[in-house]
């Protein structure tokens, strides 16, 4: 609802700005905008400035070094970057297809009587705090994973290569699985909005040509909603990368990757290692600075996901379905 050029309101605005009556109000708005810019700058400055010691000490090699030894003061971010990517990858592999299918089922394949209450319920569940989900995962899912799920995953052919080693309960796999439960409501809610935004006339035209519901989804609805779906995926990915506290409870918090690397190993993510070590590190030490350097890596990762995702959505480069 933008004002049209030359509308009465705009003419009045012009008149008004030539008088000085609206100055205080306009100034207040600019002040608020200025505060916002200062906050954004302060977030980046505050985190980056405290990490300079670590970057100076380790250089860019910090990014791929997997060392972590407090007695010799050698630290690396490699295992935590891999941990974050692994956990996020597992969560996205589960949450994206399941979430998309659920959203498609709710908007296209089920009566509105059922779809509306279910959609609202999923929206509400998306609001359950992550610490609560984490606590549930720790007490309910971890024993089940240790006893049943992880031994079972080792027996599945093709993907069993990723599940070598002993089942220990707390692992990349458990953390990724619980993370997928946490981001799936977001995925469903956002893709439902995107799918519902496709015009009904397009659907009706396809049905009139004799298309089945599945063909309508595949050839009309999904191509029509692709940028919205991509945005949903990006936001879910951003949430997954940044989620910290539930993962801290579930990933087992090992500071090494473990050999051989397996999804059943306990590990750590950028967020979990910061949370666990921050209280013990003294201000001004290399360890504290290293933790802030890990925060810088996390900041960079989320910025890449968010800004990259938005640019792709804007240009609509991906999801060019036939």
């Amino acid at each position, binding site marked *: 609802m933008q004002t049209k050029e030359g509308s009465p309101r705009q003419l009045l605005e012009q008149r008004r700005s030539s008088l000085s009556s609206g100055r205080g109000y306009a100034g207040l*708005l*600019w002040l608020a905008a200025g505060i*916002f810019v200062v906050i954004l700058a302060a977030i980046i400055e505050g985190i980056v400035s405290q990490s300079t010691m670590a970057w100076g000490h380790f250089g860019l090699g910090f990014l791929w070094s997997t060392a972590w030894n407090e007695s010799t003061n050698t630290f690396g971010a490699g295992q935590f970057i891999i941990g974050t990517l692994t956990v996020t990858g597992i969560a996205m592999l589960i949450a994206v297809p399941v979430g998309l299918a659920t959203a498609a089922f709710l908007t296209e394949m089920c009566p509105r009587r059922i779809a509306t209450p279910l959609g609202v319920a999923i929206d509400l569940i998306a609001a359950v705090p992550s610490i609560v989900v984490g*606590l*549930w995962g720790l007490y*309910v899912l971890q024993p089940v994973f240790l006893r049943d799920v992880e031994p079972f995953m080792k027996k599945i052919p093709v993907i069993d290569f990723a599940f070598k080693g002993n089942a220990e309960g707390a692992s990349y796999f458990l953390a990724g699985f619980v993370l997928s439960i946490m981001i799936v409501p977001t995925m469903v809610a956002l893709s439902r909005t995107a799918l519902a935004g496709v015009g009904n006339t397009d659907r009706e035209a396809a049905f009139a040509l004799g298309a*089945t519901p599945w063909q309508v989804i595949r050839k009309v609805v999904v191509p029509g909603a692709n940028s919205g779906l991509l945005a949903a995926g990006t936001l879910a990915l951003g949430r997954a990368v940044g989620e910290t*506290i539930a993962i801290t409870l579930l990933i087992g918090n090992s500071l090494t990757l473990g050999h051989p690397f397996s999804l059943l190993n306990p590990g750590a993510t950028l967020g979990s290692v910061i949370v666990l070590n921050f209280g013990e590190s003294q201000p001004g030490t290399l360890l504290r600075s290293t933790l802030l350097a890990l925060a810088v890596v996390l900041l960079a990762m989320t910025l890449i996901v*968010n800004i990259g995702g938005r640019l792709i959505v804007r240009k609509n480069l991906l999801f060019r379905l036939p």
Partner: protein
Amino acid sequence: MSTDLVETPSPSGKDASYYERRALIQASARGTLKRRRTVALAIRILFGFCMVLVLVPLIFLISYVTKRGVGALSVAFFTHTPTPEGIPGGGISNAIIGSLLINGLALVIAMPIGLLIALFLIERRGPIPNAIRFGADVLSGLPSILIGLFAYAVIVTHTGHYSAYSASAALAVLMLPIMIRGDEEAMRTVPNELWEAGLALGARQSRVVRSVVVRGSIPGLVTANLLALARAVGETAPLLFTAVGSQLFSLSFNQPMNAIPIVIYQDGTTAFKDLQQDAWGAAFVLMVGVLILSIIGRLFAARLTRKSR
């Protein structure tokens, strides 16, 4: 293979090969229709199964937290401060009050700033509002742990001690992008004619905004602010660097303060059964609180859409 359509008499003398070809096409069309319908049915079952996959863990989660949490509730749970493990009669009163105070202050800080920034986005056009909108979207995607580290770097390192108001500052930053976008959307639903009518009466821009725009979009503003609050109340990571938690009852914003998520995190990871029970009670209280906030917010939003129809 049915041939009923083939036997209809043809007006023009078409030869047998015409009917043969026609039967072939019809049969294959029937075949693909059957195949397409089977595929569509299979997909529908598969997708419905996916929906069950989504719902089942969430239902288990909510019912389990309710079961364990209700068992932990008692009068002392709401009225007493924590006791060490093994000593009965402990509660989380300081955490409940702490969560209310920390989030209340955060709301007081964030609400006016968010509203003013939203107004800025509505009143101005061009690259600067667009950049701020982009910034709000990016900020809403930042992990909460980074917001907590920011509050630590900017406030805690300068004051030299952990404090409740540093937690409020972190949560206010967390609320801000949700408020900005929600407020903007809510105020955009106010029809242009109302702006113009207000201005035509000779009212100042600020007066029109106050009496027409803000008042006319109150349900939407309430929704945006409640959803922002619901998000902030459940955040744990920012609190760990700012309010850090406390066993004592404190009303001072200058001191460390306890909060419900901190209780869940700290007591939930101990080996003591009674503390674990407190964690479940706290988780239940937090979950119910957040759900109530979200439901009230949605009811306001529903009222808004009914009105605008």
